[in-house]
Protein backbone atom coordinates (compact mmCIF):
# COMPACT_ATOMS: atom_id res chain seq x y z
CA UNK A 1 0.00 0.00 0.00
CA UNK A 2 2.89 2.32 0.74
CA UNK A 3 4.25 1.62 -2.73
CA UNK A 4 0.81 2.45 -4.19
CA UNK A 5 0.78 5.80 -2.43
CA UNK A 6 4.27 6.62 -3.63
CA UNK A 7 3.29 5.71 -7.17
CA UNK A 8 0.08 7.77 -6.89
CA UNK A 9 1.96 10.83 -5.67
CA UNK A 10 4.46 10.46 -8.47
CA UNK A 11 1.80 10.20 -11.13
CA UNK A 12 -0.06 13.11 -9.61
CA UNK A 13 3.06 15.25 -9.58
CA UNK A 14 3.89 14.43 -13.16
CA UNK A 15 0.38 15.07 -14.34
CA UNK A 16 0.22 18.33 -12.45
CA UNK A 17 3.46 19.44 -14.00
CA UNK A 18 2.28 18.65 -17.50
CA UNK A 19 -1.07 20.32 -16.82
CA UNK A 20 0.65 23.44 -15.59
CA UNK A 21 2.79 23.56 -18.68
CA UNK A 22 -0.29 23.20 -20.76
CA UNK A 23 -2.03 25.98 -18.84
CA UNK A 24 1.00 28.20 -19.29
CA UNK A 25 0.85 27.51 -22.98
CA UNK A 26 -2.85 28.35 -22.99
CA UNK A 27 -2.21 31.57 -21.11
CA UNK A 28 0.38 32.61 -23.65
CA UNK A 29 -1.95 31.76 -26.46
CA UNK A 30 -4.69 33.88 -24.93
CA UNK A 31 -2.71 36.98 -25.80
CA UNK A 32 -2.74 36.03 -29.46
CA UNK A 33 0.90 35.08 -29.72
CA UNK A 34 0.53 31.51 -30.88
CA UNK A 35 -0.54 30.36 -34.29
CA UNK A 36 -3.40 28.41 -32.79
CA UNK A 37 -5.08 31.22 -30.90
CA UNK A 38 -4.92 34.07 -33.36
CA UNK A 39 -8.44 34.96 -34.31
CA UNK A 40 -8.33 36.46 -37.76
CA UNK A 41 -10.16 39.76 -38.09
CA UNK A 42 -9.72 42.64 -40.44
CA UNK A 43 -7.54 45.47 -39.21
CA UNK A 44 -9.48 48.00 -41.22
CA UNK A 45 -12.51 49.66 -39.68
CA UNK A 46 -15.70 48.12 -41.02
CA UNK A 47 -18.07 50.77 -42.29
CA UNK A 48 -21.61 49.78 -41.45
CA UNK A 49 -24.18 50.97 -43.98
CA UNK A 50 -25.82 54.19 -42.82
CA UNK A 51 -29.39 54.21 -41.56
CA UNK A 52 -31.90 54.51 -44.35
CA UNK A 53 -35.20 56.29 -44.02
CA UNK A 54 -37.19 53.22 -44.99
CA UNK A 55 -35.74 51.36 -42.03
CA UNK A 56 -37.34 53.85 -39.67
CA UNK A 57 -40.57 54.91 -41.33
CA UNK A 58 -42.72 54.22 -44.34
CA UNK A 59 -42.22 57.56 -46.06
CA UNK A 60 -40.45 60.89 -45.72
CA UNK A 61 -43.60 62.97 -45.87
CA UNK A 62 -46.52 61.66 -43.87
CA UNK A 63 -49.98 63.18 -44.12
CA UNK A 64 -51.91 62.91 -40.89
CA UNK A 65 -55.64 63.01 -40.45
CA UNK A 66 -56.98 64.82 -37.47
CA UNK A 67 -60.27 65.80 -35.97
CA UNK A 68 -61.93 69.09 -36.90
CA UNK A 69 -60.75 72.02 -34.86
CA UNK A 70 -62.54 74.91 -33.28
CA UNK A 71 -60.93 78.31 -33.51
CA UNK A 72 -61.63 80.71 -30.69
CA UNK A 73 -60.84 84.39 -30.91
CA UNK A 74 -58.27 85.09 -28.22
CA UNK A 75 -55.69 87.83 -27.86
CA UNK A 76 -56.26 89.23 -31.30
CA UNK A 77 -56.21 85.95 -33.20
CA UNK A 78 -58.32 82.92 -33.90
CA UNK A 79 -56.51 80.13 -32.08
CA UNK A 80 -57.16 76.62 -33.35
CA UNK A 81 -55.43 74.14 -31.13
CA UNK A 82 -55.16 70.46 -31.89
CA UNK A 83 -52.83 67.52 -31.85
CA UNK A 84 -51.19 65.41 -34.49
CA UNK A 85 -51.06 61.74 -33.64
CA UNK A 86 -47.67 60.86 -35.05
CA UNK A 87 -46.92 57.29 -35.99
CA UNK A 88 -43.95 55.89 -34.07
CA UNK A 89 -40.76 55.13 -35.90
CA UNK A 90 -38.79 51.93 -35.67
CA UNK A 91 -35.87 52.53 -33.32
CA UNK A 92 -33.90 49.34 -33.85
CA UNK A 93 -31.97 48.53 -36.98
CA UNK A 94 -29.79 45.53 -37.73
CA UNK A 95 -26.44 45.29 -39.41
CA UNK A 96 -24.63 42.04 -40.13
CA UNK A 97 -20.88 41.74 -40.47
CA UNK A 98 -20.31 38.79 -42.74
CA UNK A 99 -17.28 36.64 -41.86
CA UNK A 100 -16.38 38.98 -39.04
CA UNK A 101 -13.78 36.52 -37.84
CA UNK A 102 -11.77 33.60 -39.19
CA UNK A 103 -9.99 30.93 -37.20
CA UNK A 104 -7.63 28.31 -38.63
CA UNK A 105 -7.38 25.24 -36.43
CA UNK A 106 -4.37 23.04 -37.21
CA UNK A 107 -5.27 19.36 -37.36
CA UNK A 108 -2.31 18.58 -35.14
CA UNK A 109 -4.01 20.27 -32.24
CA UNK A 110 -6.70 17.67 -32.29
CA UNK A 111 -9.44 20.26 -32.42
CA UNK A 112 -12.35 20.52 -34.76
CA UNK A 113 -15.06 23.03 -35.42
CA UNK A 114 -17.10 21.42 -32.72
CA UNK A 115 -14.36 22.21 -30.23
CA UNK A 116 -15.57 25.79 -30.18
CA UNK A 117 -18.98 25.55 -28.70
CA UNK A 118 -19.42 29.14 -27.66
CA UNK A 119 -18.93 32.38 -29.56
CA UNK A 120 -19.39 35.58 -27.61
CA UNK A 121 -19.20 39.16 -28.77
CA UNK A 122 -19.81 42.55 -27.31
CA UNK A 123 -19.14 46.18 -28.16
CA UNK A 124 -16.74 48.49 -26.40
CA UNK A 125 -16.21 52.19 -27.00
CA UNK A 126 -15.41 55.44 -25.27
CA UNK A 127 -19.09 55.61 -24.29
CA UNK A 128 -18.75 52.33 -22.39
CA UNK A 129 -19.73 48.77 -23.01
CA UNK A 130 -22.52 47.92 -25.41
CA UNK A 131 -22.44 51.34 -27.05
CA UNK A 132 -21.00 52.96 -30.11
CA UNK A 133 -19.66 56.41 -29.39
CA UNK A 134 -19.30 59.63 -31.32
CA UNK A 135 -16.03 61.24 -30.19
CA UNK A 136 -17.45 64.66 -31.07
CA UNK A 137 -20.49 64.16 -28.86
CA UNK A 138 -19.57 62.02 -25.86
CA UNK A 139 -23.03 62.39 -24.33
CA UNK A 140 -24.64 60.66 -27.29
CA UNK A 141 -24.34 56.96 -28.03
CA UNK A 142 -25.92 54.09 -29.84
CA UNK A 143 -26.84 51.12 -27.69
CA UNK A 144 -25.78 47.95 -29.47
CA UNK A 145 -26.86 44.41 -28.86
CA UNK A 146 -24.45 41.93 -30.39
CA UNK A 147 -25.39 38.47 -31.52
CA UNK A 148 -22.59 36.19 -32.62
CA UNK A 149 -23.68 33.59 -35.11
CA UNK A 150 -22.40 30.02 -34.61
CA UNK A 151 -19.04 29.13 -36.13
CA UNK A 152 -19.19 27.70 -39.62
CA UNK A 153 -16.59 25.45 -41.26
CA UNK A 154 -15.53 27.09 -44.50
CA UNK A 155 -12.69 24.74 -45.42
CA UNK A 156 -11.14 21.56 -44.16
CA UNK A 157 -8.09 19.59 -45.26
CA UNK A 158 -5.53 17.31 -43.72
CA UNK A 159 -3.60 20.14 -42.19
CA UNK A 160 -6.31 22.38 -40.78
CA UNK A 161 -9.90 23.34 -40.46
CA UNK A 162 -10.89 26.95 -41.09
CA UNK A 163 -13.85 28.44 -39.27
CA UNK A 164 -15.69 31.67 -39.87
CA UNK A 165 -18.54 33.48 -38.19
CA UNK A 166 -20.95 36.36 -38.75
CA UNK A 167 -21.76 39.03 -36.21
CA UNK A 168 -25.18 40.66 -36.05
CA UNK A 169 -25.48 44.10 -34.50
CA UNK A 170 -28.82 45.49 -33.39
CA UNK A 171 -28.51 49.26 -33.07
CA UNK A 172 -30.95 51.17 -30.88
CA UNK A 173 -31.11 54.77 -32.06
CA UNK A 174 -33.40 55.98 -29.28
CA UNK A 175 -30.66 57.90 -27.51
CA UNK A 176 -29.08 59.57 -30.51
CA UNK A 177 -29.17 63.31 -30.10
CA UNK A 178 -26.76 64.37 -32.81
CA UNK A 179 -25.58 63.21 -36.18
CA UNK A 180 -22.02 61.93 -36.35
CA UNK A 181 -19.72 59.01 -36.92
CA UNK A 182 -20.30 56.46 -34.22
CA UNK A 183 -17.46 54.00 -33.63
CA UNK A 184 -16.51 51.13 -31.39
CA UNK A 185 -14.86 47.72 -31.24
CA UNK A 186 -16.65 44.43 -31.43
CA UNK A 187 -14.72 42.06 -29.17
CA UNK A 188 -15.14 38.44 -30.18
CA UNK A 189 -14.29 35.48 -27.98
CA UNK A 190 -14.41 31.81 -28.88
CA UNK A 191 -14.51 29.25 -26.11
CA UNK A 192 -14.95 25.55 -26.02
CA UNK A 193 -13.56 22.26 -24.83
Amino acid sequence: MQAFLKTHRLVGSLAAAVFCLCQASEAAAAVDTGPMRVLGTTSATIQLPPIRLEELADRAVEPISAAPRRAVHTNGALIANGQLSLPPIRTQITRTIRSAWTLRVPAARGMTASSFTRVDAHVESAAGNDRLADPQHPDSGIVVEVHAKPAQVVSMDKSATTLQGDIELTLDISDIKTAGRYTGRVVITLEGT
Partner: protein
Amino acid sequence: MSLISRSITRILAGGLLTAFAASISQPAAAAAGDVSVEIDLTGGVTILYYQSTLKVAIDTTGFVTAGTCASTGTAPNVYFDCPTSAAATINASVTGVTGLVGTSGGPTTTGTAGFGTNLSAVPLVLNNVWAVRALGGNTANTTVQVALQAANKTLTAPASGGTIVLNGIDLGTGSLAAAPGTAPVTTTKTATFADPGLTTTQAGYVVLNLDMSNAKAASAAGAAYTATGPQYVISITST
Protein backbone atom coordinates in the same frame (compact mmCIF):
# COMPACT_ATOMS: atom_id res chain seq x y z
CA MET B 1 3.77 -6.09 -1.63
CA SER B 2 1.92 -8.97 -3.12
CA LEU B 3 1.42 -9.49 -6.79
CA ILE B 4 -2.27 -8.59 -6.45
CA SER B 5 -1.49 -5.41 -4.59
CA ARG B 6 1.07 -4.34 -7.25
CA SER B 7 -1.49 -5.02 -9.96
CA ILE B 8 -4.14 -2.89 -8.26
CA THR B 9 -1.62 -0.12 -7.85
CA ARG B 10 -0.74 -0.24 -11.55
CA ILE B 11 -4.41 -0.26 -12.57
CA LEU B 12 -5.24 2.72 -10.35
CA ALA B 13 -2.18 4.61 -11.47
CA GLY B 14 -2.99 3.85 -15.07
CA GLY B 15 -6.51 5.12 -14.59
CA LEU B 16 -5.28 8.34 -13.09
CA LEU B 17 -2.80 8.81 -15.88
CA THR B 18 -5.51 8.20 -18.45
CA ALA B 19 -7.74 10.73 -16.78
CA PHE B 20 -5.01 13.33 -16.65
CA ALA B 21 -3.95 12.52 -20.17
CA ALA B 22 -7.48 12.99 -21.33
CA SER B 23 -7.64 16.36 -19.69
CA ILE B 24 -4.32 17.33 -21.20
CA SER B 25 -5.14 16.21 -24.72
CA GLN B 26 -8.36 18.26 -24.76
CA PRO B 27 -7.42 21.63 -23.32
CA ALA B 28 -10.01 24.39 -23.13
CA ALA B 29 -10.13 26.10 -26.48
CA ALA B 30 -10.11 29.86 -26.49
CA ALA B 31 -9.45 32.60 -28.97
CA ALA B 32 -10.21 36.28 -29.05
CA GLY B 33 -10.04 39.17 -31.41
CA ASP B 34 -11.79 42.42 -32.18
CA VAL B 35 -13.19 44.34 -35.11
CA SER B 36 -13.46 48.10 -35.35
CA VAL B 37 -16.81 49.28 -36.68
CA GLU B 38 -18.19 52.65 -37.63
CA ILE B 39 -21.60 53.86 -38.74
CA ASP B 40 -21.92 57.26 -40.36
CA LEU B 41 -25.11 59.04 -39.36
CA THR B 42 -24.25 62.38 -40.91
CA GLY B 43 -26.08 61.65 -44.16
CA GLY B 44 -29.37 62.69 -42.74
CA VAL B 45 -32.84 61.36 -42.09
CA THR B 46 -35.75 63.80 -42.12
CA ILE B 47 -39.45 63.02 -41.80
CA LEU B 48 -42.17 65.65 -42.18
CA TYR B 49 -45.63 65.08 -40.75
CA TYR B 50 -48.46 67.42 -41.57
CA GLN B 51 -52.20 67.59 -41.13
CA SER B 52 -53.44 66.95 -44.61
CA THR B 53 -57.01 68.16 -44.24
CA LEU B 54 -58.03 70.95 -41.95
CA LYS B 55 -61.58 71.60 -40.91
CA VAL B 56 -61.87 74.59 -38.68
CA ALA B 57 -65.01 75.90 -37.07
CA ILE B 58 -64.55 79.55 -36.26
CA ASP B 59 -66.22 80.73 -33.12
CA THR B 60 -67.02 84.31 -33.95
CA THR B 61 -68.34 85.14 -30.52
CA GLY B 62 -64.82 86.19 -29.54
CA PHE B 63 -64.83 88.91 -32.15
CA VAL B 64 -66.97 90.99 -29.89
CA THR B 65 -65.43 92.84 -27.01
CA ALA B 66 -66.68 91.19 -23.87
CA GLY B 67 -69.22 93.06 -21.88
CA THR B 68 -70.01 95.65 -24.50
CA CYS B 69 -72.66 93.81 -26.44
CA ALA B 70 -75.84 92.19 -25.37
CA SER B 71 -76.05 88.59 -26.43
CA THR B 72 -78.83 86.13 -26.88
CA GLY B 73 -78.93 82.45 -27.66
CA THR B 74 -76.55 79.68 -26.70
CA ALA B 75 -73.46 78.35 -28.41
CA PRO B 76 -73.02 77.68 -31.18
CA ASN B 77 -75.75 80.11 -32.12
CA VAL B 78 -75.13 83.32 -30.26
CA TYR B 79 -76.34 86.67 -31.41
CA PHE B 80 -74.92 90.00 -30.35
CA ASP B 81 -76.35 93.42 -30.32
CA CYS B 82 -73.56 95.89 -30.05
CA PRO B 83 -74.05 99.64 -29.66
CA THR B 84 -72.60 101.59 -32.54
CA SER B 85 -72.85 105.12 -33.70
CA ALA B 86 -74.99 103.94 -36.58
CA ALA B 87 -76.99 101.70 -34.33
CA ALA B 88 -76.11 98.75 -36.49
CA THR B 89 -76.64 95.27 -35.25
CA ILE B 90 -74.09 92.58 -35.78
CA ASN B 91 -75.33 89.07 -35.86
CA ALA B 92 -72.62 86.49 -35.70
CA SER B 93 -73.34 82.86 -35.58
CA VAL B 94 -71.48 79.63 -35.69
CA THR B 95 -73.13 76.74 -37.35
CA GLY B 96 -72.08 73.20 -36.93
CA VAL B 97 -68.53 72.08 -36.48
CA THR B 98 -67.14 72.64 -39.94
CA GLY B 99 -68.86 75.81 -41.11
CA LEU B 100 -68.48 79.11 -39.91
CA VAL B 101 -69.58 81.75 -40.07
CA GLY B 102 -69.97 85.03 -40.58
CA THR B 103 -72.05 88.00 -40.05
CA SER B 104 -75.17 89.61 -41.26
CA GLY B 105 -76.81 92.89 -40.60
CA GLY B 106 -74.06 94.99 -42.09
CA PRO B 107 -70.89 94.43 -40.12
CA THR B 108 -68.31 97.10 -40.51
CA THR B 109 -64.68 97.18 -39.57
CA THR B 110 -64.65 100.79 -38.55
CA GLY B 111 -66.86 103.02 -36.59
CA THR B 112 -68.15 100.33 -34.31
CA ALA B 113 -68.09 100.13 -30.61
CA GLY B 114 -67.64 96.77 -29.01
CA PHE B 115 -66.72 95.01 -32.18
CA GLY B 116 -63.03 94.59 -31.48
CA THR B 117 -61.86 92.83 -34.57
CA ASN B 118 -60.63 94.08 -37.89
CA LEU B 119 -62.40 91.62 -40.14
CA SER B 120 -60.08 92.22 -43.06
CA ALA B 121 -57.08 90.81 -41.23
CA VAL B 122 -57.93 88.06 -38.80
CA PRO B 123 -55.01 85.76 -37.96
CA LEU B 124 -56.06 82.12 -37.82
CA VAL B 125 -53.41 80.27 -35.81
CA LEU B 126 -53.26 76.56 -36.58
CA ASN B 127 -51.18 75.06 -33.82
CA ASN B 128 -49.56 71.63 -34.20
CA VAL B 129 -50.33 71.18 -37.86
CA TRP B 130 -46.84 69.96 -38.72
CA ALA B 131 -43.98 68.15 -37.03
CA VAL B 132 -40.51 67.03 -38.04
CA ARG B 133 -38.08 64.31 -37.05
CA ALA B 134 -34.59 65.10 -38.27
CA LEU B 135 -31.04 63.96 -37.75
CA GLY B 136 -28.04 64.94 -39.84
CA GLY B 137 -28.03 66.23 -43.36
CA ASN B 138 -26.13 69.15 -44.78
CA THR B 139 -26.27 71.05 -41.52
CA ALA B 140 -27.41 70.48 -37.96
CA ASN B 141 -30.56 72.43 -38.78
CA THR B 142 -33.74 71.77 -40.73
CA THR B 143 -35.81 74.31 -42.64
CA VAL B 144 -39.55 73.98 -43.21
CA GLN B 145 -41.29 76.14 -45.78
CA VAL B 146 -44.93 76.98 -46.26
CA ALA B 147 -46.19 78.45 -49.52
CA LEU B 148 -49.54 80.15 -49.92
CA GLN B 149 -51.33 78.93 -53.03
CA ALA B 150 -52.67 81.99 -54.81
CA ALA B 151 -55.02 79.99 -56.98
CA ASN B 152 -56.86 78.69 -53.96
CA LYS B 153 -56.69 81.60 -51.60
CA THR B 154 -60.36 82.43 -51.84
CA LEU B 155 -62.71 80.19 -49.91
CA THR B 156 -66.34 80.34 -50.78
CA ALA B 157 -69.52 79.20 -49.13
CA PRO B 158 -71.82 78.45 -52.05
CA ALA B 159 -74.95 78.50 -50.00
CA SER B 160 -74.48 82.03 -48.76
CA GLY B 161 -72.23 83.49 -51.43
CA GLY B 162 -69.83 84.65 -48.80
CA THR B 163 -66.07 84.55 -49.21
CA ILE B 164 -63.06 84.40 -46.97
CA VAL B 165 -59.80 85.40 -48.60
CA LEU B 166 -56.43 84.20 -47.34
CA ASN B 167 -54.27 87.26 -47.80
CA GLY B 168 -51.21 86.18 -45.87
CA ILE B 169 -49.42 83.28 -44.29
CA ASP B 170 -46.89 82.70 -41.53
CA LEU B 171 -45.04 79.73 -40.08
CA GLY B 172 -43.18 79.00 -36.89
CA THR B 173 -42.09 76.41 -34.37
CA GLY B 174 -43.91 75.62 -31.17
CA SER B 175 -47.39 77.05 -30.70
CA LEU B 176 -48.99 80.43 -30.29
CA ALA B 177 -51.59 81.64 -27.80
CA ALA B 178 -51.96 85.05 -29.38
CA ALA B 179 -51.52 86.84 -32.67
CA PRO B 180 -48.04 86.29 -34.13
CA GLY B 181 -45.56 89.08 -33.77
CA THR B 182 -44.45 88.78 -37.37
CA ALA B 183 -46.27 90.13 -40.37
CA PRO B 184 -47.81 87.56 -42.67
CA VAL B 185 -46.45 87.25 -46.19
CA THR B 186 -48.27 86.53 -49.39
CA THR B 187 -45.84 84.00 -50.88
CA THR B 188 -43.63 81.75 -48.79
CA LYS B 189 -42.36 81.70 -45.25
CA THR B 190 -39.71 79.47 -43.67
CA ALA B 191 -38.74 78.36 -40.20
CA THR B 192 -35.30 76.97 -39.37
CA PHE B 193 -34.61 75.00 -36.23
CA ALA B 194 -32.04 72.60 -34.79
CA ASP B 195 -32.49 68.96 -35.74
CA PRO B 196 -34.66 67.50 -32.97
CA GLY B 197 -33.43 63.92 -33.44
CA LEU B 198 -35.41 60.91 -34.52
CA THR B 199 -37.33 59.94 -31.42
CA THR B 200 -38.29 63.48 -30.54
CA THR B 201 -40.11 65.88 -32.84
CA GLN B 202 -40.25 69.57 -33.54
CA ALA B 203 -43.85 70.69 -33.94
CA GLY B 204 -45.00 73.93 -35.42
CA TYR B 205 -47.84 76.21 -36.42
CA VAL B 206 -49.17 77.87 -39.55
CA VAL B 207 -50.96 81.18 -39.47
CA LEU B 208 -53.46 82.10 -42.18
CA ASN B 209 -54.42 85.73 -42.37
CA LEU B 210 -58.13 85.87 -43.14
CA ASP B 211 -60.04 88.63 -44.79
CA MET B 212 -63.52 87.95 -43.45
CA SER B 213 -65.09 91.23 -44.45
CA ASN B 214 -67.23 89.43 -47.00
CA ALA B 215 -67.98 86.43 -44.85
CA LYS B 216 -71.62 85.63 -44.42
CA ALA B 217 -73.45 83.19 -42.30
CA ALA B 218 -73.64 79.74 -43.79
CA SER B 219 -77.14 78.63 -44.38
CA ALA B 220 -76.72 75.25 -42.77
CA ALA B 221 -74.32 73.27 -40.67
CA GLY B 222 -71.52 71.88 -42.81
CA ALA B 223 -71.80 74.54 -45.47
CA ALA B 224 -68.15 75.30 -45.10
CA TYR B 225 -65.96 77.76 -46.92
CA THR B 226 -63.82 75.73 -49.26
CA ALA B 227 -61.68 75.94 -52.38
CA THR B 228 -60.94 73.39 -55.06
CA GLY B 229 -57.26 72.95 -54.20
CA PRO B 230 -54.96 73.27 -51.23
CA GLN B 231 -54.55 76.65 -49.62
CA TYR B 232 -50.91 76.09 -48.68
CA VAL B 233 -48.13 73.63 -49.35
CA ILE B 234 -45.65 72.72 -46.64
CA SER B 235 -42.27 71.18 -47.39
CA ILE B 236 -38.72 70.63 -46.20
CA THR B 237 -36.31 72.88 -48.06
CA SER B 238 -33.05 72.28 -46.19
CA THR B 239 -31.68 69.48 -44.03
